[in-house]
C-alpha cells in the first residue's frame, strides 16, 4: 500500500485537500454513514479487502484505518 496514494484517496472521500495519519475520522465535517460506506467501497475496490462499519469506527484515525486495511491485505 502506497501511503501517499491512500492519503489522497481518503482526502477525496473526506472532502478535504489533504489528511494526516493522526487525523481523527470523526472530526471531519462530512463524517457520516455514507462516508463510511464510501470507505467500504474503496477498500473493496482498490485493496480487495472487506470492511464493516464497526471496524472502521473502531479504527478512529486515518492511520488506524490504514493499519486495518494493511492487516486485512496480509
Amino acid at each position, binding site marked *: 500500500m502506497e501511503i501517499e496514494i491512500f492519503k489522497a484517496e481518503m482526502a477525496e*472521500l473526506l472532502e478535504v485537500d489533504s489528511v494526516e495519519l493522526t487525523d481523527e475520522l470523526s472530526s471531519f465535517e462530512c463524517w457520516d454513514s455514507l462516508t463510511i460506506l464510501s470507505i467500504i467501497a*474503496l477498500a473493496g475496490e482498490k485493496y480487495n479487502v472487506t470492511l464493516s462499519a464497526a471496524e472502521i469506527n473502531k479504527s478512529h484515525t486515518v492511520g488506524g484505518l490504514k493499519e486495518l486495511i494493511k492487516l486485512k491485505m496480509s
Partner: protein
Amino acid sequence: MTTYNPFTLVGRNFLITGAASGIGRATSIVLSKLGAKLILCDLNESGLEITLNECGDGHIMLPIDLANSSSIKLKVNDAISKFGKLHGFVHLAGRSYIAPLKSVSEEKCKELFAINTYAALELAKVFTNRNVYIGEKGSIVFVSSVYGVVGSAANVAYAMSKSALHGITKSLAIELAGKGIRVNCVAPGFVKTNMLDTASGMFDANYAETLNKLHPLGIGEPEDVAYAIAYLLSDAAKWVTGSIMNIDGGFTAQ
C-alpha cells in the same frame, strides 16, 4: 381424472440464472416441484451441484459467466442441443453494489450492468431464436429489486441496473407478444440470503431493525419470491405481460 392446477409447470422447460444460491436456488426447487425441467445456470459450480441434487432428475447444470455476453449464445445453444427447446427463462443472477455517489466507479458500474442488465437482454435475444424457443406458451421473468422502484442512499448504480430491467420488461412485452412470449418482472424486497448478510455487515448495529421496519410483513423468505416467479411462468398468468410485480412484504406500499 386429472387434478385441476392452472399453476402446473409439467412439460415445461426453463433456463434459470443465479441458480446456485439464495432466491435462485429456492426458485429452482419450487419450479422443479411444480413439474418444470430446468437448465440451472450460475458461475458457482459447486452451488449448482447442490441445487441440482435438490431439484432431482431431469435437470442439467450450465456453469456460465454471464458477464461474458459473447459466450452466452454458444453455451445456451450447446445446452439446448442436449436438453431440448425452452418455454422460457428466469434471469435471477445479479450483484449488489453499495456505494454512495462519491465512490461510484465506472468500471464497477460496467461489471454490474453486464450481469444485472445486459445479460437479461442477451438471454432474451438467444431465447427468442426459433432454435431455442419451443414456439408456444413462452414466458420470460426478470428479477429486479425494490430499489428499481424506490430510491435508497448508496444504491444509485444498483438502482440503475435494476430499474433498467423494468424498461426492458415493458419494451419486450410489446415486441414479443406476437411470438406468444410474455415478459414480466418481479421486484423483490429484502429476503433472507447470504447477499443480505454480506450487505448488513456494511451498516451499523441498527440496520436489521431499520430493514425490518421497511417491510410491514417483515423480511421475506426466498420462496416468497419463487412463488411469484412460478405464477408468472405458468398458464395462470397467460393474460399477464409487461407487469412489474412488487413482492416486498409491503415495502413499496408505504
